[in-house]
């Protein structure tokens, strides 16, 4: 199924969880925050949150800024 990750089309396995997605993206264990269709999904819920087609996922981290 197709989802949007950080604004880009991404081909994901059906019913993939957020935890599996971040693992696939090499972001497992990293300090990130995730928004799914504009709602924050707390880290504790990543493993239980399953995605569906056309979901919009935003993954952010901290970078240098003033």
């Amino acid at each position, binding site marked *: 199924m197709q989802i949007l*990750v*950080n*604004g*880009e089309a*991404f081909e994901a396995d059906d019913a993939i969880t957020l935890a599996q997605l971040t693992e696939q*993206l*090499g*972001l497992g264990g*990293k*300090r*990130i*925050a*995730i*928004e799914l269709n*504009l709602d*924050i999904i*707390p*880290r504790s819920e990543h493993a239980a949150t399953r995605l569906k087609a056309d979901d919009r996922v*935003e*993954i*952010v*981290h*901290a*970078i*240098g*800024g*003033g």
Partner: protein
Amino acid sequence: MSAIDLQKDSLVIAGKTYQSRLLVGTGKYRDMDETREAIEASGAEIVTVAVRRTNIGQNPNEPNLLDVISPDRYTILPNTAGCYTAQDAVRTCKLARELMDGHDLVKLEVLGDEKTLYPNIVETLKAAETLIKDGFKVMVYTSDDPIVAKELEAMGCVAVMPLGSLIGSGLGILNPHNLRIIMEEARVPIIVDAGVGTASDAAIAMEMGCAGVLMNTAIAAAGKPVLMASAMRMAVEAGRAAYIAGRMPRKAYASASSPLDATLINR
């Protein structure tokens, strides 16, 4: 007041006490090592970071800023830089809170346009209201308008941070008179955010009685950033000490430092 008393002089923001009155950003450095060294040299305890999308599929092993600037050691202040609407700023703060495990101190800045990066006050007020209702502790970047500053304080912002001059301009403190009016009225810390170009600018802000100074470019874009970070640390300390000491009154004419009687010269 002695040097020992000065050590007891501390900055309190949202109930937390800080010894350093210099707040620094982490942008524009050459690499993570330079970032870490400059932040250490600055003595800052509050450090701002930006919140951005991760690069999907690009070098997942690159060092993470928060591994270098540890939240165990520093108070991390996520900013909303790059946001032009209240909605985007609120969204960014919510992501930041999740990123920081519930830590809810944020630097709100809602910008007006790319050329000036001047704050959009209408959107800033809207965002501040929403964030405070949602439990955030808001340190707010604003213009040097005393009425707006007062309004932001009344809403419940934990620090009001007027600009000295435009972000990244290094033009210094352009309107000390307005800053003075803002400080006269304020009951929350007033922190000059943006505009500092070199050490004397930071000292001037502190001599006026500002509670602190927040800067990024003045250190990161200096020829030797780590050395400038240490210069800024000293400037902020010197300016604060001079403020507490109380400067001498200005006079239009000279006043001799050596006694004028018993000189060898007959006048």
